C-alpha cells in the first residue's frame, strides 16, 4: 500500500496533488479573501489579476473561491456516493460468494444485466423527476456504481470462505448471516475499501456530467461540472473561466487514476492462498 502510494516520483507527485486539492477544498473559504458567491462590482468578467488570481466570472464572482467551493461539493458527493456503493456492493458480493449455487448465479446475473444498461439514464430520470437535490444525487450515483465492487468482493469471499476460521465458525453452529457479518466481511473489508476508492473518479465524472447538463448541482451551490458548463459558455471571450475548473478536474482525475492503477496492481499481485 505504502509502496503503491509513494513508490515512484509520479506516484508521490499524485499523492501530493490530491492532498493539496483536498486541503484546498477544505480550507477554501479561508484561503480566498472572496466568498464564492460574493460579487465584485469593480471586476466583472475580469482576467486573472492580483486581486482575483484566477479571474472572475460574468457576474464578478471570484473564480478561485468558486473553484475551491466547487471542489468541496464534487469531492463530497464522490465520497458519499462511493460509501453508498460500498453499502450495496459489499453485502451483495459477500452474500453471493458465500451462499454460492443458484443464489450466486442469480445475483451475479443481475450484476451482468445491470452492466449492459445505460445507467446514467436512470440517474437522470431520478434527479429530474424527484427534485434536483444533492442527497438524491449521491444516493442515485452510488446506487449505480456498486457493480465492480460487488464482483471484486464476491471473488474475495470465494477465497475467504474456505479458510479454517470460517469452517470453525460453521462447526460451532454460527448461522450464515453471522458468519458473513463477523467473519467474512471483516476479513475482506480492507481490500474492498481500497477497491472502492477506484469508484471515486467515475463518480466525479458522472456528477460533473449531470451538473454540466444542468441536472445535478443547482445554483447557488456550485461544483466542477457547473463551473465548467458556465466557463464553456463564455470560453470565446473569457477562456480563464473555463481554465480554472477544467484544469482542476483533469488534474484530480489524473492523480486519482494513477494512484488507483498502482493500488489495483499492488492488490492483484498479492499471492492468494
Amino acid at each position, binding site marked *: 500500500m505504502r509502496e503503491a502510494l509513494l513508490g515512484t516520483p509520479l506516484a508521490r507527485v499524485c499523492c501530493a496533488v490530491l492532498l493539496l486539492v483536498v486541503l484546498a477544498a477544505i480550507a477554501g473559504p479561508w484561503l480566498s479573501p472572496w466568498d464564492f458567491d460574493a460579487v465584485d462590482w469593480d471586476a466583472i468578467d475580469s482576467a486573472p489579476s492580483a486581486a482575483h488570481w484566477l479571474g472572475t466570472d460574468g457576474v464578478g464572482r471570484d473564480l478561485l473561491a468558486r473553484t475551491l467551493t466547487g471542489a468541496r461539493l464534487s469531492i463530497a458527493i464522490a465520497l458519499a456516493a462511493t460509501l453508498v456503493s460500498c453499502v450495496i456492493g459489499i453485502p451483495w458480493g459477500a452474500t453471493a460468494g458465500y451462499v454460492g449455487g443458484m443464489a450466486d448465479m442469480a445475483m451475479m446475473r443481475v450484476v451482468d444485466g445491470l452492466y449492459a444498461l*445505460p445507467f*446514467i439514464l436512470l440517474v437522470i430520470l431520478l434527479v429530474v423527476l424527484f427534485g434536483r437535490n444533492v442527497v438524491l444525487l449521491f444516493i442515485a450515483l452510488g446506487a449505480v456504481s456498486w457493480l465492480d465492487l460487488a464482483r471484486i468482493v464476491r471473488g474475495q469471499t470465494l477465497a475467504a470462505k474456505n479458510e479454517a476460521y470460517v469452517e470453525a465458525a460453521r462447526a460451532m453452529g454460527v448461522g450464515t448471516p453471522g458468519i458473513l457479518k463477523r467473519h467474512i466481511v471483516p476479513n475482506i473489508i480492507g481490500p474492498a475499501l481500497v477497491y472502492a476508492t477506484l469508484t471515486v473518479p467515475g463518480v466525479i465524472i458522472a456528477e460533473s456530467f449531470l451538473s454540466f447538463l444542468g441536472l445535478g448541482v443547482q445554483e447557488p451551490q456550485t461544483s466542477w461540472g457547473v463551473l465548467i458548463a458556465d466557463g464553456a459558455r463564455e470560453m470565446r471571450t473569457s477562456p480563464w473561466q473555463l481554465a480554472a475548473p477544467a484544469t482542476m478536474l483533469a488534474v484530480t482525475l489524473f492523480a486519482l487514476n494513477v494512484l488507483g492503477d498502482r493500488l489495483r496492481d499492488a492488490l492483484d499481485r498479492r499471492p492468494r492462498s
Partner: protein
Amino acid sequence: MSRYLLRRLVFALVTLGAVVTVTFFLVRLAPGGPFDGERRLPPEVEANLRAAYDLDQPLLVQYGRYVANLASGDLGPSFRQKDFSVNELIGMGLPISVGVGLAALSLALALGVAGGTFAALSQDGPRDRLLVLGATLGLALPPIVVAPVLVLVFAVSLGWFPAGGYATAKHFVLPAITLALPYAAAFMRLTRGSVVEVLNRPHVMTARAKGLGRFRLVSRHVLPSALLPVVSFLGPAAAALLAGSMVVEEIFSLPGLGRYFVQGALNRDYTLVTGAVVVYAALVLGFNLLVDLCYARLDPRIRHA
C-alpha cells in the same frame, strides 16, 4: 452456438422488459404531470386532456396498452410536442446519435487497439511508457473538458471544423473525437495488458521460434486471443458512451436522442421519456448481442459449447 445466442437473446428481451416497466412506472409516480404549466388549466380541460391521452385509466390498464403498442413498434404520441409522435421525434434524433456514437466507438477501437499493441510490443521501453502515460491522461479528460478545448482550438482559432450543427460529415469530427478519447484510452490499456500476457504464451513463442515475421505473428497469433477482453468490454463501453453522447450533443448543438430524453424528462413528457429510454436500452442491448456474436466467433470454447 445457436443455443448460446438464443439464451442471450431471451436475456436481452427480459432486461428490456424490465427497463420498460421500471421507466413506465417511475415517470408516472413522480410528482408533477405533463399538463402542469404556468397557468392552471380549467379542470374540465385538464380532464379532457387526460382522457385523450388515456391518463384517466388505472395505471395497470395504461401499462397494458403501452406494452401492447410497443410490441407493434408504436411509442405513442408526444404529450408536449403536439402533432408529433414519439416515433417521429426519435426518428429525427436517432440517426445523429447513432452516427456520432458509432464514429466515436470505431475511432476509440482503432486508436486503442493499435496503441495498446504497439505499447505491449515495446513493453517497458520509452515508447510504452509514453503511450501508457497518454492513456492515463486520456482517462482524465472527460468530454466536458475536452469538448470546449477542441472547439476553442479547432473551430474558433483554426477554423478547421464547425463548432456545432450537423449538416455535413465535417460536423461530426470534433464530437466523435471528444467522445472517443476516454474509450480509446480504456481500450488501449486493455489491449496492452492482454497482448503482454499473450506474448508470453507457448504458442506465440513457438511461432516466434519458427521465425514468423512480426506482423504475421501479431495479426495471426497474438491479436485473435488478445482481443477477447477488448471485445467483451465493447458492451459496457457502448452503454457508458451514452452519458458522454448527451454532453457532446449539448455542446455541439446536435439534436440527437439525448436532447429529446432530457427535454422529455424535464417536461414530464411521459411517452417521450419512456420512448427514449426504450430506444437507448434496445440499442445497447442489441449492441451487446452483436458483441456476444463476435465473441462466439472469436472464442471456440463458446462456439462449440
